[in-house]
């Protein structure tokens, strides 16, 4: 397993493999989200109480799940980078933060839009809303620390410590805020139990998986870009760029070669 991990941790290998996976993941993302959106927005019934506003759920809940999932993944990747010195893990942690922050912001905005017709207010100091807002602050702190250092290596290691401390704190913050105030509806989905009718559950699950894959797609794209940027002085990147240039404008580069 260690051999595999180190092999996968090498930027060039990652770049090659991720390039092959990317179209499949991207395609699956598009398919799942399109089907999920169709089922959620057109084919599923409106809620008897919340009517059509319930359809906000198909965006809101998957992005809320993502916002927390990405923080955990980011902290894990940061820890792996800190402990085993794996470059790819550092990059994954660094590029995950803005994506996670975006999903958190999306959750807050859709939640706010949902809250207006349901609770009659744009914002309520409810436990889950508040902890989501605090999660956004944690992301922003991480991004700020990440960009404060000149040196990439130090930035990765320092922000890894912060991410781990944050990950320890997230459950504490969550429960303390919950104790402080609760208005939000209780969780509808538990392991093995569900208070949602299948006609609404299916689009929700499709959207949830679609959003996870959307994250993976963006993650792969951004990580590949970051790999190229950080490794720009290495031989394989230069060769890659050379190949791309040959493919896009064969005549031009050939004549350059001849001149040399």
């Amino acid at each position, binding site marked *: 397993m260690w051999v595999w991990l180190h092999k996968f941790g090498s930027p060039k290998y990652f770049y090659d493999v991720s390039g092959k996976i990317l179209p499949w993941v991207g395609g699956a993302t598009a398919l799942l989200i399109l089907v999920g959106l169709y089922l959620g927005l057109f084919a599923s019934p409106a809620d008897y109480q919340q009517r059509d506003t319930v359809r906000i759920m198909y965006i809101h809940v998957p992005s809320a799940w993502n916002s927390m999932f990405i923080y955990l993944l980011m902290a894990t990747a940061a820890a792996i980078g800190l402990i085993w010195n794996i470059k790819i893990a550092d990059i994954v942690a660094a590029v995950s933060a803005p994506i996670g922050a975006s999903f958190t912001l999306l959750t807050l905005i859709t939640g706010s839009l949902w809250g207006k017709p349901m609770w009659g207010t744009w914002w309520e100091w409810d436990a889950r809303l508040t902890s989501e807002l605090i999660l956004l602050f944690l992301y922003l*702190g991480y991004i700020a*620390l990440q960009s404060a250092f000149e040196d990439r290596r130090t930035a990765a290691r320092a922000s890894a410590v912060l991410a781990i401390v944050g990950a320890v*704190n997230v459950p504490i913050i969550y429960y*303390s805020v919950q104790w402080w105030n609760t208005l939000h509806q209780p969780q509808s989905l538990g392991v093995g139990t569900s208070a949602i009718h299948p006609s609404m559950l299916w689009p929700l699950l499709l959207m949830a998986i679609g959003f996870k894959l959307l994250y993976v797609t963006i993650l792969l794209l951004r990580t590949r870009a970051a790999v190229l940027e950080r490794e720009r002085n290495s031989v394989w990147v230069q060769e890659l760029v050379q190949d791309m240039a040959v493919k896009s404008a064969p005549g031009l580069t050939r004549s350059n070669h001849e001149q040399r």
Partner: protein
Amino acid sequence: MNATPGVFAVLGVLIRRDLLLALRRRAQILNPLVFFVIVVTLFPLGLGPEPNLLQKLAPGVLWVAALLSAMLSLEAMFHSDFEDGSLEQLLLAPQPAFVTVLAKVLTHWLLSGLPLLLLAPLLALWLHLSPEAIVVLMASLALGTPVLSLIGAIGVALTVGLRRGGVLLSLLVLPLYIPVLIMGAGAVDAAASGLAAGAHLSMLGALLLLSLSLAPWAAGAALRISVE
């Protein structure tokens, strides 16, 4: 025959050194306290002198002010040692990094948390808190302010090498302070409305134990990264 001094001996020496250094620069100790008093004074001026309103807001106001003043004094924890290079020497010394951090945290608490704790009852009187609530306020500050110093140490350790770490520090540390704020203000609020504050205080105690066992370790790791 023991060449390296024991952990507690080192701890004692470090704390004595830092207290001595701080006593030579008294203004640095006083400034956060004056800040604390001024912030608390601002609230009645902004909200109006209505006793009932002030009484209701007092737990939150006092705790937020305590939080901010603790945060303001954080930067001094490692800064001068980092500037003159003694921090590097301390990390090279045979004792583990968390002992150094623990000494710094204890000094910080003695210089900022403890005076705050002693000053708080006076300000609580200004805000018309009941005597029972003042007792609970002191208990909650006694349990809560060390947590602020401990968590803050991680933030300072991460930002000590940066030229403009101040605003960044608050961005990193304030979200992590939220549980302490909720429990601390909650305890005082409960006592002020005649309810038992035991649960909140127990939670604060739990937070203290947890941060005491984990924070020095994390701050030590962060210091090594910053000093490198």
